[in-house]
């Protein structure tokens, strides 16, 4: 069953990226296409991350099995975050290594985004059956990194605007809502972890 979903849903998840490239080359992204492209990719990464985190609470609400889409949405979030970084380095900075290095070492805004991506990397690499079997209980602990990634991405997103605005307020509220809905899960996860300590 899962395989049939994947055949349809992975290409569907890539559509926004394809659409943005086509729009960009067609002159439909406005006066500053690189900026729009870069920001849109980042926003899609954040959207998929939010969907990924929302699956479990929604499943409890409606009873329909949604957990099988966690890998799909998580991997798409990672994929868009990588494209977002690539757009920044290749199209925006045009490989200016000097600026990139200064950004990485001096700017909390950029560092937060990079750390969020760094949190997602091991999750993407272990998003397969083999790793789940190998890592056993550690896999679950490892995948709690997703909370770190979501919170850091949220701050990074907020900082990408010059002032508070409707878009950032909307997405930060969604993040808060999702985390709140998961609070019981997060809590019990940490309690179990605590119980194991001698």
């Amino acid at each position, binding site marked *: 069953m899962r395989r049939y979903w994947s055949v349809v849903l992975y290409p569907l998840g890539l559509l926004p990226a394809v659409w943005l*490239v086509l*729009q*960009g*080359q*067609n*002159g439909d*992204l*406005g*006066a*500053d*296409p*690189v*900026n729009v*492209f870069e920001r849109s990719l980042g926003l899609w990464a954040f959207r998929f991350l939010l969907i990924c985190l929302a699956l479990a609470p929604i499943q409890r609400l409606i009873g329909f099995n949604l957990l099988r889409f966690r890998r799909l949405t998580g991997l798409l979030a990672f994929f868009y975050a990588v494209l977002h970084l690539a757009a920044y380095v290749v*199209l*925006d*900075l*045009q490989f*200016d290594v*000097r*600026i990139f290095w*200064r*950004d990485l070492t*001096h*700017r*909390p*805004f*950029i560092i937060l985004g990079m750390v969020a991506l760094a949190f997602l990397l091991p999750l993407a690499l272990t998003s397969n059956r083999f790793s789940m079997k190998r890592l056993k209980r550690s896999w679950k602990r490892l995948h709690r990194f997703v909370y770190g990634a979501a919170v850091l991405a949220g701050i990074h997103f907020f*900082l990408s*605007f*010059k*002032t*508070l*605005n*409707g878009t950032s*307020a909307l997405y930060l509220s969604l993040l808060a809502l999702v985390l709140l809905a998961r609070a019981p899960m997060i809590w019990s996860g940490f309690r179990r972890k605590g119980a194991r300590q001698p």
Partner: protein
Amino acid sequence: ADALKTHPGPYSGGLAPTPEEFVTGYNNFYEFGMEKDDPVSHSGDFHPLPWTLEISGMVKKPQRLDVGALLKSSDIEERIYRMRCVEAWSMVIPWDGIPLAKLLQAAEPESGAKYVAFESVVRPSEMPGQSSAFSGISWPYVEGLRLDEAMNPLTLLAVGIYGESLPNQNGAPIRLVVPWKYGFKGIKSIQRIRLLDRQPPTTWNRLAPSEYGFYANVNPQVDHPRWSQASERVIGSKTLFGTKRQPTLMFNGYGEQVADLYRGMNLHDNF
């Protein structure tokens, strides 16, 4: 927009203007909304004329300037300037206007006047961004210059672009252009200019003092806390992969005209 009678002024040579559609379709004008296309789509209800520009404060002869009459005069000159936004993108814009110095001289500043304060318009019924809960800006938008900066021959009060009166989204009917400073210094739809003996508050500095200074001179060596100012995206490419990036010039390339204004000043501290 109405056609203006303009004649070429100084400092116009050598620059190729950005296509007009980008200059009139990509604007920061928070009075009409926070996205770049908000000003062009939400400024239709704004009525720039009739308009009186008041020059007051520490002057011997306060002025009330009829901007409608100015638009019909033949004093308007064309200046093609680089425009560098603090957000690290740039354009080249053919402005039509008159040097600010000309108006200030007519008002005869008193000897104690050291600064010039500018104030924009407040019309929430015509400017939807002014009633928005977001942005945190307290209206009116205010800006300021040192008097010697204001008197510099480059400093322009623009009433038009591309030979026509200013579209609403570009700051109709009259706005400030200070080409060696970041774009946010170019206050739009100006109603009042006052001469003062002390430095006036400025909108972006009030909002985020660590990010936007009073001077806001274009300076590739002083970065914004969140991004580099060493180079800039050039607005005007039609395609995503065709976008160019170019080094940012000290004082946006106008050092010859303005560097003397800041001799001996620490430009890292006075950003």
